[in-house]
């Protein structure tokens, strides 16, 4: 009897995701609860009463970049990251730097996530003295990274239903916080600093300074970071009349709504000065205590923690897969492309990311007291860099298709380029601003400039050095030629996911 060879087949479950799952992935990846906990102070310090307006305004460049993700995904489906797209459109060197920026952004954000997890973990059990201890918070933060890394290596996943439940609880809790805060302001129970909400808070044109816009945007690229994942998952489009991308639109509305509502409620309840001055790192948790009180504030803390957990997972998984992609393309050592036999996950990549994150987190904590704030500015630089080049890559890749229709020109050309330009400006203006140490949140000075700039630029320069080093010994990847889109790619229907299994 001869071996017949291997037959490929789809499983019984469909590959495509339904509407609800797509929305959940998008919103949970963006992690509104954790994002708010991390940036509430920063954004209020930057623009005061106009915080809600900046959060609305800041969404526009992200929307434009999301268009580039959407259209690049049409050309190269299922490869939801900058590395492969930028390599195609702009060549291997830019692609390499894009992939590097993703990896670095991951390592940086892990420090922040770990810190939030430590702080809010202690708040949850009501142990304030531990929350004030850098050592205690750092220990819990490191344990957090270890556990989350292990979860990603083992490939443990929550069921879809559990994810919907957790996210629903998170959103309901944040809404509850906002409603109660507004109610207490209206009834006069909100304390001395409270301000009645005004429509001008939501008007982007009422923001007085460009500096405020710049700082607000730098923070906002962070809070909307992860939203792009909705655009890249193949949403189920089998029933006609539905458009792919409707999950992306819906999750956007949820995010913008939550950010605007909660920031407005917080400002209204405590007043902008009190929030801007907070240096505890857990302003949202403390506010929740005054707003909800009576143990109900624990709900907000739990929401932040589940959100941070989801965010940690949606940070580790794509990054490990990006380094796997890079390893398979010959752009990084092949060991990073190894897959665990039993768990079927890129274990070497994942563990390495975890180790780097711990080294970075502990190292930064030893050096700087105020890592929460400064790391987010550095992270904003990194995200602006790789989102920005993805925007340009889209227009470059489709450059021969842009004149086919007005729609192509506007959505595939103009929008991504505008997004790219805004992020380029943001990157440049923030670098100039951060070059003055007094403008960093910690007020520290490293090498005569602010820590976020040293971190951001330092990592990019390190990336260039590593790339040149790698290129020396492994020139194959760097010989890859730039490509343009196949004619008609944009006119073809979006990639459909096959129906169910055929028999082997």
């Amino acid at each position, binding site marked *: 009897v001869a071996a017949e060879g291997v037959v490929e087949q789809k499983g019984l479950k469909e590959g495509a995701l339904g509407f609800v799952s797509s929305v959940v992935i998008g919103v949970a990846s963006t992690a509104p609860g954790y994002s708010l906990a991390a940036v509430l102070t920063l954004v209020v310090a930057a623009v005061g009463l106009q915080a809600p307006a900046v959060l609305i305004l800041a969404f526009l460049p992200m929307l434009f970049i999301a268009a580039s993700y959407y259209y690049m995904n049409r050309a190269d*489906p299922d490869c939801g990251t900058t590395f492969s797209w930028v390599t195609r459109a702009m060549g291997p060197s830019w692609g390499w730097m894009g992939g590097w920026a993703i990896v670095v952004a991951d390592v940086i954000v892990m420090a922040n996530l770990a810190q939030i997890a430590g702080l809010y973990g202690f708040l949850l059990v009501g142990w304030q003295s531990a929350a004030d201890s850098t050592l205690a918070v750092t220990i819990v933060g490191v344990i957090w990274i270890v556990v989350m890394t292990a979860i990603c290596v083992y490939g443990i996943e929550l069921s879809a239903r559990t994810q919907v439940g957790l996210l629903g609880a998170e959103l309901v809790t944040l809404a509850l916080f906002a409603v109660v805060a507004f109610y207490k302001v209206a009834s006069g129970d909100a304390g001395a600093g409270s301000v009645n909400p005004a429509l001008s808070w939501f008007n982007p044109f009422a923001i007085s300074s460009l500096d405020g816009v710049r700082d607000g945007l730098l923070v906002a690229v962070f809070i909307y970071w992860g939203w792009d994942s909705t655009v890249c998952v193949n949403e189920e489009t089998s029933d006609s009349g539905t458009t792919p991308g409707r999950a992306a639109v819906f999750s956007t509305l949820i995010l913008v709504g939550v950010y605007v509502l909660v920031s407005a409620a917080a400002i209204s309840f405590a007043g902008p000065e009190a929030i801007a001055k907070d240096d505890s790192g857990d302003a949202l948790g403390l506010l929740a205590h005054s707003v909800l009180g009576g143990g109900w504030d624990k709900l907000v803390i739990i929401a932040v923690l589940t959100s941070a957990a989801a965010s940690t997972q949606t940070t580790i998984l794509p990054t490990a897969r990006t380094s796997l992609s890079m390893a398979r393309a010959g752009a990084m050592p092949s060991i990073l492309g190894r897959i665990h036999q039993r768990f079927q996950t890129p274990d070497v990549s994942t563990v390495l990311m975890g180790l780097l994150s711990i080294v970075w987190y502990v190292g930064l904590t030893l050096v700087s007291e105020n890592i929460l704030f400064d790391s987010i500015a550095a992270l904003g630089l990194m995200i602006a860099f790789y989102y920005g080049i993805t925007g340009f890559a889209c227009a470059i890749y489709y450059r021969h298709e842009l004149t086919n229709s007005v729609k192509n020109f506007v959505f595939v050309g103009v929008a991504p380029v505008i997004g790219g330009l805004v992020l380029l400006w943001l990157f440049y203006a923030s670098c100039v601003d951060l070059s003055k140490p007094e403008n960093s949140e910690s007020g520290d000075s490293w090498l005569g400039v602010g820590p976020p700039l040293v971190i951001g630029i330092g990592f990019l320069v390190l990336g260039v050095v590593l790339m040149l080093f790698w290129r020396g010994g492994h020139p194959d990847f760097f010989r890859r030629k730039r490509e343009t889109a196949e004619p008609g790619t944009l006119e073809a229907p979006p990639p459909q996911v096959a129906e169910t299994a055929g028999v082997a």
Partner: protein
Amino acid sequence: MAASLVVGYDGTPGARAASDEALRLARDLGGELVFAYCYAVSPVGGEVGDLEAALRERGTAVLNEALAQAHDAGIAARAALVNDRPSSGLVGLAEENDARMIIVGSYGEPPLKGALIGSTAHKLLHLSERPVLVVRA
């Protein structure tokens, strides 16, 4: 012709134990073996394409290994690369092939650990309507 036996096979020691037992059973009972390598990549992690490609490569390699072993033993065998979670993939494949039973390996780890990190053998015991044979590595 006697019914087939579906064997979960990922090339690990547990899978080899399952495959060895399946070869003996096929010899005694007659019937054909269907080796299956199941893989499912979470869409939460983005960048699905390359990880799936890597898993398909690995799956093809280990399945060919299993087919060669069956060939050497003179047992009729097929192999399937199934894009699904192992538990539901094996159950589905067993239904399709009207299999007599599903054979998988186990690592002999404590049940609590299996529950935490996910044990295919454990899930199959509850999900499969067909008999399941678990072979300890």
